[in-house]
Structure formats: structure tokens, C-alpha cells
């Protein structure tokens, strides 16, 4: 007869201090919900004071605590001040999950500047603020939200795909640099994710034919859910993934067709 050895998988997130910028909607909001359920203390933000206040109300009373204030992630001073403020209020930071994006588009050169500033530069700035704190407290985990649009041709050549791709390069090389402080750096690259109020809901309405093709191209015959992506983000960010660093986890229900060695 098997005697339990206490070997079931535990994420070990309880009590972790987590920063998730721009996290009042979509996948990142689902991440925050799950972190609160796991007993983490989580800092959130959004550009709108009203949205942050509503989210904090919705998140109150859970196993963990949510804090936050309105902040424009695109504004260097505001963003860095918010990060320091949150770290101070949380009493440190164990996990950082940057995933803010300017979204897709190939309208003009402006798309490139926006993707660079919003997707890339805010992530780099965030890492530069949190890493010294993680180093001080003996380690941490950083998980970037990237995209499968960087690893396979998708939706036409555009800044979003290329700039998110640059984050894959940055994450890998950063993981080499900060490993010595006990900091792990990984990426989670979701494929198309459908939820009410999400981009793919809008695309289902506005580009119905293309949406149907994308859906059909998924071996599982549907798009992903925020929860299915969030599950993977929580895992990679948790102590349960202590031996995973410098990787890019594709979470797309088999949508991308490349062989990943």
C-alpha cells in the first residue's frame, strides 16, 4: 500500500509579493485573481484611477491582498515611482510579471515607436527597478508575457511581433546575468486567447472569416482562455518551477506549427 510522501505538486506561492503592471483586464487580471487565491500580496495598476479602485474592490477579501494606484506604465518617472512605492508597501518583491503591450497594427512608423516604448522599454525599466530588490532579498522570479506571433509568421509583418520577439532575446540573456542572485527569468508566449472584452472577441465580430480560420488552425479547435495561460504564468513564476530559467513556454493549444527543439 502506498503511503503518502507529501510529494504532490505545490506552487508554494503563499505569501509571495508580486507586481503585475497593467493588470485590471484580460489575461493579467486572471493572473492577479489566481495569485490572490494562492495567498499572494499583489500590486496592480492601470491608467485609470476608477478602474484601479474598482479592481481593488473586487479583489478585496481574498486570501491575499491587492494594492495599487493609477499609473501610466509608458511614463518612465510615473512607472518607476509606482514600482518603488509598491515594493515598499509590499515589503519587497519576489515575483514580477510584466505583460503590457501597445497591441498590433501596421499603420505607420508610429506603431514601431509605440511597441518599443510600451512593450519593450517598460519591461526593461521594470526589470531594472525590481532586480536590485530581488538581489537584496536573495532571489525572485520574472515572467514576461510574450506572444506566439514572435515565433511564427502571424498577422503580417508588424512591430508587435518583432518587439515582443526582442523581449524573448532580452529575457534569455537577462536570465544568464541574474541567475547568480537566485533570480529566474522566463517567458510565457500565449497564442490567440478569447475572452469577453478581449481583442479576439472584437476580431471575431470584425474579421469573422479570419477568426474562423485561426480557430480552425488550432488542433484543439478553439482559442485559449485567460485561465489556461494564467495557469502557466503562475507555475513558471512559482517556486515549483525553481529549475526553470531562460525558457519560453508556448501556451497555444498546439496552434503554432514549428517543431520546438
Amino acid at each position, binding site marked *: 500500500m502506498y503511503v503518502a510522501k507529501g510529494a504532490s505538486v505545490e506552487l508554494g506561492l503563499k505569501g509571495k509579493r508580486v507586481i503585475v503592471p497593467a493588470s485590471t*483586464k484580460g489575461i493579467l487580471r486572471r493572473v492577479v485573481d489566481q495569485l490572490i487565491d494562492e495567498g499572494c500580496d499583489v500590486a496592480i495598476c492601470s491608467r485609470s484611477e476608477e478602474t484601479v479602485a474598482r479592481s481593488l474592490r473586487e479583489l478585496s477579501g481574498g486570501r491575499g491582498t491587492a494594492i495599487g494606484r493609477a499609473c501610466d506604465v509608458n511614463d518612465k518617472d510615473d512607472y518607476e515611482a509606482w514600482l518603488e512605492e509598491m515594493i515598499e508597501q509590499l515589503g519587497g518583491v519576489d515575483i514580477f510579471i510584466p505583460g503590457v503591450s501597445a*497591441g*498590433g*497594427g501596421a*499603420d*505607420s*512608423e*508610429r*506603431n514601431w515607436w*509605440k511597441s518599443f516604448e510600451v512593450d519593450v522599454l517598460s519591461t526593461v525599466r521594470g526589470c531594472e527597478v525590481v532586480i536590485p530588490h530581488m538581489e537584496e532579498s536573495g532571489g525572485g522570479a520574472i515572467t514576461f508575457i510574450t506572444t506566439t506571433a514572435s515565433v511564427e509568421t502571424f498577422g503580417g509583418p508588424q512591430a508587435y511581433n518583432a518587439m515582443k520577439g526582442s523581449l524573448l532575446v532580452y529575457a534569455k540573456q537577462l536570465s544568464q546575468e541574474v541567475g547568480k542572485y537566485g533570480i529566474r527569468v522566463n517567458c510565457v508566449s500565449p497564442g490567440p486567447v478569447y475572452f469577453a*472584452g*478581449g*481583442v479576439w*472577441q*472584437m476580431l*471575431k*465580430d*470584425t*474579421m*469573422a472569416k479570419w477568426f474562423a480560420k485561426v480557430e480552425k488552425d488550432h488542433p484543439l479547435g478553439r482559442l485559449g482562455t485567460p485561465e489556461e495561460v494564467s495557469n502557466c504564468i503562475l507555475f513558471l513564476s512559482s517556486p515549483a518551477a525553481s529549475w526553470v530559467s531562460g525558457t519560453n513556454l508556448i501556451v497555444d493549444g498546439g496552434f503554432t506549427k514549428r517543431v520546438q527543439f
Partner: protein
Amino acid sequence: MKVIRKNKIIRSDPKENPNGTPLEKTLDIDLGTQIIPKERYTSKEFMEKEWETIWTKVWLLGCREDQIPDPGDYICTNIGRESVLIVRQRDGGFKAFHNVCMHRGNRLADEGLGHAEPFVCGYHGWKYDSDGSFADIPDIETFPQGKPPCNGLSELPCDTWASFVWFSLNVQVEPLEEYLGELIGHFEPYHFERMAMTRWVTAEWDCNWKASVDAFAESYHTAQTHPQLLWYLEDLDLQIDLYDRHSRYLVPFGLLSPRVESVGEIPPPLKAMLHSAGMDPASYEGSMNDIRVAVQQYKRETQIEQGKDFSELHDEQLTDDFNYLVFPNVTTNTHSDDLMLFRHRPHPDDPNKMFFDIWMFELIPEGEEWPPLPKHDFRPAGSSRSLGIVIDQDASNLATVQEGMNSAGFPGLWLSDQELRLRHFHKTISDYVGE
């Protein structure tokens, strides 16, 4: 889809903007809540009444003035069982005639555009001048009674408005201006004469002509039938104006429907709107619902360099859809840069069929070359070629609507306030038909 907020729609104050297209909302009138009997759409008897009391009595749209630019140019257009010739005159004016030779009744021309100097009957060679008068009757000496006393083709009332030529099968018809009534002054500020006709399609549809009018006179079907438009326009808070026999509603474009929320990215239809106004979507930093006003301001500021004169239009006309029904069968999606005009024509004898005419026009910037006139493109019933996504979506409902209307299980139309224009349409029909 559920309504999740109320949009704040900025509208010009009619009192401060007395010139141009009238903006005043008409007074609400009580049209009741009765069911509209389905027989109006399905019965041959009702169709016959419409023929006797509407089609042969009212003013009807014939063509664009510039479709027949030179003397002798004509268009032959059919309405129900009748066929009409509209002919450009030597003095630049227009005359309309029954398309029938006064000898033995042969048709003089087939539907479509042509040039005839003179019209020659294909049977015995009777000839008619472009003003309709007899030009030659072969072997006239063999008619002991001489030529017919009518002196030529059977003439019909004909007049012009807003770059279009109108006619009536009723020789006693009131003047066109009187018939159009309150609508006079609504279209003029758009200067349709600066717009080039770019598309001319006729589709044969398996529905009553009124079912087709209905599909373009209410916005209630947007959420279910045109989900893409929820990411482009206001489908709920529309100004509905009911005139004597005509009607309109004003549909704000350039914002999200109150049924959807921003997803952080500009939806493709709104991007297309920004692009066509000459704006860069990537540089637009405002909220989704402020795109409407931003486009209005940008078009206003850049109109001169874009070679467009919007000086007679109100701000909302630079984005919104002023959607008219010119009774009985012309609907227009009127915009500053284009006009989408639909003519809903009855079938000669089948209430379950109709002809849907699409006439598209685009504003040509000053100094730019005009495209050639479009050729007529006819789509027989059952054609699978696309008419454009929005019209395809509408058309996909209509055949099954007509089938269902013929069902014993369906008593008639059960209308909401969002469909008030349909109720008004039927009230006008009742006024003509007398029931």
C-alpha cells in the same frame, strides 16, 4: 447583446445651426403598437392596391443626371409592370416617356443606358425624336386616319432634385418639390453633384420590396446581423425623424456601440475610418469613443488641402450616417465623402420578389479626375457573388424572412420603438392604400 453603458453623443444644437441640413428632431407622434398584417408583404391583392394607389401615383427615382449627359442619351428603367424612358433634351433638360411605341405597343428600348437620335421601333420602324414627337412614320399615307393625335410618345412628369432625375407614372402628380416636402434642403449641402457614381448593381431578391426597405430603416438588427458594426457605430441612441411621408434616422459613426467595451486596440472598422479621413490610427491617442469627434475636427481642419468643401455640412455630417427613406422606395446612407443609395423596386407580379438597386457615389476632390461611369451589373436571384459584407448580411435574412412571412404561423410584424420608422412607413402606405 446586452447594453453595458450609455454613450455620450455630441450633437450640434439645431438652434445654433439653422443653416444646412435641418437638424431638428421632429415631434414624437403616436403611431400605436398594433401588429402590421403580414399580408402587406405576401398578398397579390395588396400588391395590386399598392400598384394602383402608390406606384402609379407618387414620384419615383429614375437616374442620376450625369448618367445621361448628352442630348439623346437615355435610360430605360422598369418599375413594376411599367417601363420608362428618361431622355436628355437638347436644352439640357429631361423628359420621361412610357417606353412604348404608339403604333402597336412594342417596347422601344431594353432596360439600361443608351443613346437614340431618334428612337426607332424595331417592329415597323416608327421613329421618335428625343423630345418624344414623331420623327417618321413609314408609309404614313397608308394610315387613312393619319398619325395618332397624341403627337408622339406618351409623356410622363419628370423633374430633378439633388443631382437625380425623378419621374411619375401619374400625369396629375403634384409638383416634385411639394411631394418631397420637408426633405427639400436636406441633401443640397452634401453636393451630390460633386460625387461620382462608382457602382451600379441590381440584385433580384426573393422578398417583398418592403422587407428590403425595412432592413435599411432600423438599427435593431445591427447586433445580431452586423456584429462588426458594433465596433464602429452607435446602434441605440439614434435620432429618428418622421416627416409627412418620408423619414430618417441619424446614426453616429466613429465610436463603439454601447453593447461592447474597448479592447485597447482600435477595431479595424474604426481604423479604416481614420485612414480614409487621412489620419494615422497609430498616432491616435484618445479613447475609442472620441474617434468620432477627432475625425470631425480633422476633416474640418484639412478639408481645403484635401480638396473637399464641407462648409455647408454640420460637424456630425462629417462622420455620421444620415439615413433617409424617400417614400416609397429610396433609402440613402448619406455621408460627407460618399453616398450609398438603394432603390427597392417591386416585381411586376410577384409579391415575394423584388429588385434591389445599389448606386454608390464617392466625393471626388477638386481637381481630381472623375472615374468613368460604372457599367450596370445584374445579379439574378441566387447569385452567390458578394454585394459587400453588410448588404450580404442583410440579404441573407431577407429570403428566409419572406418564406416565414408566408407561414400560417406568422400573423404580422411586432415592432419595437427602435423600428419606429417601419411603423411610420406602414402608416404612410395606409394613407395611400386607404386601409
